[in-house]
């Protein structure tokens, strides 16, 4: 959409966008280009000997069972986080929309986890579920469950899913609440007059109207699970045990920083870039299209 009224100036607009463009080039495009370049090299950490190897790094990645496992693990993780986050927050939002008294109090009490850094969320939950000293571990032991996420990969995955979802509930909750509150009451009343129970009303009226929000949140939650949860993993499982929680973004960091495998890490970065671009394109084409200015 265009403005009818615009200003004319030979130099001013350039001056105005200059800061952002400058930072974007130096800190976005230049490193991204370097990542692409490095992905075609094999080099020692000090940069003293580099060899151009075309797509060898990529080929090795896809031959590496661990990298392929990482895809699977990331898929499981992000689906779990997105689905549970959306279901729980939708339930809470529907309830909050329903009550008249105390709505603001509930809202305030439910949104503050948004302020918690994912890494801290991870640490808090890891503390509660710590194999030796955690309070939840103690309770589980009483019920005969041997909880040791340091050995059990499934338990470790459960831990990071809980920590990551917990943090995201508030964000989802706010969007659902706003979406629910923008549904015209007249529609619901009409359905009630037709004899529909609350449950039917929900499925036939509310849920379809919420679908743009749901879809938007699905994309956002998946992107969050892909990238924003780095802190959760690093502060707790660090990809373990036995690489059972090594999501893709963590592998990039680990291979680049801890293992000094610059070529492999760069190749992984490039693949992740492609995935993000695809997700963002999906978000903009399917979601933004529905909104009018």
């Amino acid at each position, binding site marked *: 959409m265009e403005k009818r009224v615009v200003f004319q100036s030979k130099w001013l607009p350039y001056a105005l966008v200059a800061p952002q463009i400058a930072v974007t080039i130096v800190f976005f495009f230049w490193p991204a280009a370097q990542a692409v370049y490095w992905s075609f090299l094999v080099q020692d950490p000090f940069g*003293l000997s580099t060899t151009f190897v075309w797509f060898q790094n990529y080929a090795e990645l896809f031959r590496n069972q661990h990298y392929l496992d990482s895809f699977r693990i990331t898929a499981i993780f992000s689906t779990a986080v997105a689905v549970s986050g959306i279901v729980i927050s939708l339930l809470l939002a529907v309830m909050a929309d329903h009550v008249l008294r105390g709505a603001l109090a509930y809202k305030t009490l439910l949104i503050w986890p948004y302020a918690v850094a994912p890494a801290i969320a991870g640490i808090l939950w890891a503390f509660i579920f710590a194999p*030796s000293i955690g309070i939840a571990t103690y309770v589980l032991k009483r019920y005969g469950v041997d909880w040791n996420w340091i050995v059990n990969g499934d338990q470790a995955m459960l831990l990071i899913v809980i920590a990551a979802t917990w943090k995201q509930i508030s964000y989802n909750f706010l969007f659902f609440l706003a979406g629910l509150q923008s549904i015209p009451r007249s529609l619901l009343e009409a359905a009630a007059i037709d004899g529909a129970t609350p449950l039917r009303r929900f499925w036939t009226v509310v849920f379809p109207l919420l679908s743009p929000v749901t879809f938007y949140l699905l994309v956002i939650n998946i992107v969050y699970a892909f990238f924003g949860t780095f802190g959760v993993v690093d502060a707790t499982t660090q990809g373990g045990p036995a690489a059972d929680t090594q999501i893709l973004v963590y592998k990039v960091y680990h291979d680049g920083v801890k293992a*000094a495998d610059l070529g492999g890490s760069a190749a992984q970065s490039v693949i992740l870039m492609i995935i993000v671009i695809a997700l963002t394109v999906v978000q903009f084409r399917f979601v933004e299209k529905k909104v009018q200015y």
Partner: protein
Amino acid sequence: MIRKTLFAALALAFASGAQAQTEIQWWHSMGGALGDKVNELAGKFNASQKDYKVVPTFKGSYPESMTAAIAAFRAGNAPHVLQVFEVGTATMMAARGAILPVHKLMKDADEPFNPKAYIGPVAGYYTDSKGNMLSFPFNSSTAIFYWNKDAFKKAGLDPEKPPRTWKEVVAAAEKLKASGQQCAYTTSWPSWIHIENFSAWHNVPIGTKENGLAGTDTQFQFNTPLHVRHLTMLQDLAKRGMFSYAGRTNQGGAKFTSGECAMLTESTGGQANVRRGAKFNWAVTQIPYWDDVKGAPQNAIIGGASLWVMGGKTNNAYKGVARFFSFLSRPEIQMEWHKATGYVPITYAAYDMTKKSGFYKENPGAEVAIKMLTNKPATANSKGLRFGNFVQGREVIEEEIEAVISGKKEPKAALDEAVRRGNEILRKFEAANKG
């Protein structure tokens, strides 16, 4: 006006001339109390002479500080001295343009330096195949065995007689479990203790070419029947609820200190924590072994870190670094560091001095580690190890060990897989460092 400027310029020149102190940047990963000790040592050196000032900076964990140093090197402002953990040795050694070998540093600066003064396994770890020392040993540890005397008594075991062989460990574990002990055994640093030190202690190779000390074309060999037998024992103990895995670093120490597990294999450096937190009688001894293996126990290999000198600095600065290293080599300084930290004394002179001071009579546990290192003269299998990209390599081993302990994989299959994956990493390193 001109006079003022002249005066100011003169004063400045005079001041900078008088204070021609060269700063030596030292990046390390010694946190907390260890870091305080490092600062103390540097302070002592700085106070003993005026030409050089060593500035230690804590740069995070070993991997973090190494990454930071590599990036700094690429940007042209690396520190003079960098503390690198043992698994980073191969990477540093291969970076010929980036480092200055210690033997060359000392020779060029006319500082006395005798590799034979260092304890065998310590020197061997950081020496090339020609006998030249490449980095300066600083903090070395090895793995020892801890046991809970009170728990032993309760289980009907003699609290003064710890298990000497792994068979005895299993027998003790059974009795401990029967007496109600929550967990009989745990460990820290699984790869370092149960594969690397295990191999050296039994005089079997971890890899060809003297565990990589003699060349980058080394191949892993830790999937022999002996290794399989050992991992099978661990897996069995885990299945029967007698072995509780604690993690890849020193988390086992906490399980022992809290009384949860009655036996522990861990670094000698962990004694300080146990001393602080344990509310029971305990003691340490050497690591168990399989007594049907010929030549066992051989000697242990070290963990810890050494100091590397980065390239591209001035000769004057290198003189200062050499003098600092000479300072650190003094027996009394070594003894002080050893007593305060729990790391082993790395020269024979320091060891003797500590013995004479009666320290070991009061703290017998402090001598176990050094005794293990000097148990027998080192063989090709027990001088140490040097594998490229061993950070990744060790992780591969740990991943496979975890799969065995959780019952997901059989020991033979896991070790074969670890050898296969590990060799891939070694080949990559070899290829990247051909230049």
